């Protein structure tokens, strides 16, 4: 069957006119986009990898050295230490207060009583580790060195050491925002399709020389184009096109095709707008799961990897935050393309049946 470009173009132009004619929709779409961009730039762009503690040693010049991950502030008095912990000044979350003569007592092998101040809400692991640290200081003064040096020499770092340059929450949010925009646009397309069916304007279009295939092609192209354009603009505004822009745009294009397929399905299944919202949410929420999973450290669970949008979210974060290139994400994009083919075909087939049934 031959598809006539001018017919498809005319239907797309009609949809575009309908979309842009409603200034309310256009305004809200732009405001929504601006809102996501603002949220993105307000998110923390660094990762705080340091635990800040305070130390006071009465009548002693105890010096605890800070190290990677540990910031130590020395205080002149117990009151100053307590106050710092209570108010969280200088980021101090806990403090160790060594009593008068503790060093001599430790050297004589006598028990030393140390007060550990902890601000309410401090994580348990910090409290536990700080107690261990206090014991280790006393053991060291007593001439009992640690059995091994876990802090430096005996530690093996596996993988690229990203200490000091961790992927921030802001960077991790990129795939989620992109998937969210794609999903919202898909909802708009699903609604458009449902309206055409509900109001039977599709039958009006089909009494013209336009065929059902051309109608479906136009809807698919319009939906994909709209989702792609808005998401690409978002990625540009949140700085996600700085590295490997072409691969990133290819990823977004596949994502747009994926959600268009889902939108055609939701638009065909929903009898009215409320039905469309229901079906869309049913389909779209699982699509957002890989975006949420990208917020967490570590590899995704197997069931998350099986989600259609996993390749989209993972490729985005690998490209924008881990310096990956096309070759690195090619297997993910291949999986995404396969899902695109499945969902897009399903969407087109079901919508075609619905159109023919009218």
């Amino acid at each position, binding site marked *: 069957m031959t598809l006539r470009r001018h017919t498809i173009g005319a239907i797309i132009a009609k949809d575009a006119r309908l979309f842009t004619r409603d200034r309310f929709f256009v305004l809200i779409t732009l405001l929504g986009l601006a809102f996501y961009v603002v949220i993105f730039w307000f998110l923390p762009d660094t990762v705080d990898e340091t635990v800040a503690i305070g130390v006071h040693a009465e009548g002693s010049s105890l010096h605890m050295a800070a190290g990677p991950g540990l910031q130590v502030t020395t205080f002149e008095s117990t009151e100053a230490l307590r106050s710092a912990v209570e108010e969280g000044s200088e980021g101090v979350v806990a403090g160790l207060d060594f009593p008068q003569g503790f060093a001599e007592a430790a050297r004589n092998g006598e028990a030393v009583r140390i007060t550990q101040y902890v601000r309410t809400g401090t994580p348990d692991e910090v409290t536990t580790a700080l107690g261990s640290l206090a014991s280790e200081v006393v053991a060291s003064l007593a001439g009992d060195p640690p*059995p091994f040096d876990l802090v430096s020499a005996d530690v093996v770092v596996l993988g690229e050491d990203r*200490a000091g340059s961790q*992927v921030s929450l802001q960077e991790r949010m990129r795939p989620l925002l992109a998937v969210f925009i794609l999903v919202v646009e898909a909802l708009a397309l699903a609604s458009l399709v449902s309206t055409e069916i509900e109001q039977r304007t599709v039958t009006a279009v089909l009494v013209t020389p336009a065929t059902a295939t051309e109608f479906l092609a136009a809807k698919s192209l319009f939906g994909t184009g709209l989702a792609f354009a808005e998401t690409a603009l978002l990625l540009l505004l949140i700085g996600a096109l700085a590295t490997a822009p072409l691969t990133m745009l290819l990823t977004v294009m596949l994502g747009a095709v994926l959600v268009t397929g889902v939108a055609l399905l939701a638009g065909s299944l929903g009898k*009215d707008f409320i039905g469309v919202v229901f079906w869309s949410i049913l389909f779209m929420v699982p699509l957002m799961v890989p975006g949420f999973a990208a917020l967490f450290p570590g590899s995704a669970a197997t069931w998350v990897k099986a989600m259609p949008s996993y390749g989209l979210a993972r490729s985005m974060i690998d490209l924008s935050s881990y310096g990956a290139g096309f070759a690195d994400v090619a297997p993910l994009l291949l999986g995404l393309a396969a899902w695109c083919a499945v969902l897009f075909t399903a969407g087109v087939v079901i919508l075609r049946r619905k159109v023919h049934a009218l």
Partner: protein
Amino acid sequence: MSFTRIRTILGRELRMGPRSPLVLYAFVLPVVMTLLIRGVFGGLFAPEPRLGIVDEGGSQVTQRAQELDGIAVTVMDDVDAMLDRVEGNDLDAGLVLPAGFDATVMSGTPADLGFYVGGESLESNRILLAVTTLDLVRGVEGTAPPAEVEIVQLGEDTPDLTARLLPLIVMYAVAIAGAFVPAAGMVDEKVHRTLSAVLVSPAKMNEVLAAKGLLGVILALATGLVTLAINDAWGSSIAVTVLSLLLAGVMMVEIGLVLGAWARDANTLFTAFKAGGILIFFPVIIFLFPSLPEWIARLGPSFYFLDPIFQAVTTEVGLADVWVELVIGLAIVAALAPIVVMMGRNLEGRLARTT
């Protein structure tokens, strides 16, 4: 206004309502939100350091590590599998305890211990796990601890993250059930012209609005109570909690009816919620980030029911402590009432012109 007719219309709404996917959505959403927010975001904002252990000889270290608070310990059998998980950032660090480790430590000879950290693990987690591991190994030596550490808690007890996220979940529950369901019902009746059909009967517009509003209040109260129940957050005062939820239901219903009367179709309504939702939802920010100035949240009407609920859940309060917020909330409800009536009349006029 006839209460009999309102009851009749409400009866119809209650019979037809459960068929709408939105009502199902209103009840399912709080459960999904609770799971998502508690499971996903709770873990995101307060991640525990993750330590993997391969114990080749039944060391005491493993048992003591599993008893630690604040550290997620995973005991594994295979060293390579554990190292893969450390490298893949599924664990922050991994510990390999060879056979005879405890005996070696107790004899005072240097022990051979493998400690691996993931490249993507935070420096803070690395130091916390390293120091804790050192202490665990010291414990195996069998000597008395060199220091006695007394822990003193300072500062006020601040609500934990789960409590701070509760207003967000409650907000979603009452907004969907109280505002979106009646609004969507109004729009649906307009689009399908069943509203015009009802109005040619003796029923009046204000009776239709009252019936739809009552349905919304019942739903909002029900979903709000379900939300509090699944979060185990009844609070210190049931009276404060229920009154606040009732206030929330009525306020959301009024907003929903205004939007439902105004929107010409479901698309417009959905877009209005998408855009205007922020005006209803923004006060939840103050509960998530208590350091922000409270006056910002006080600009949002939902603050006046969210704050009493939050206070009841996190502290010991009674009606005497939150009456100011509740009265302001009631004043907002009273101010919205004439707008609902006006929008109803306006809609009635529009329907009369088009039929």
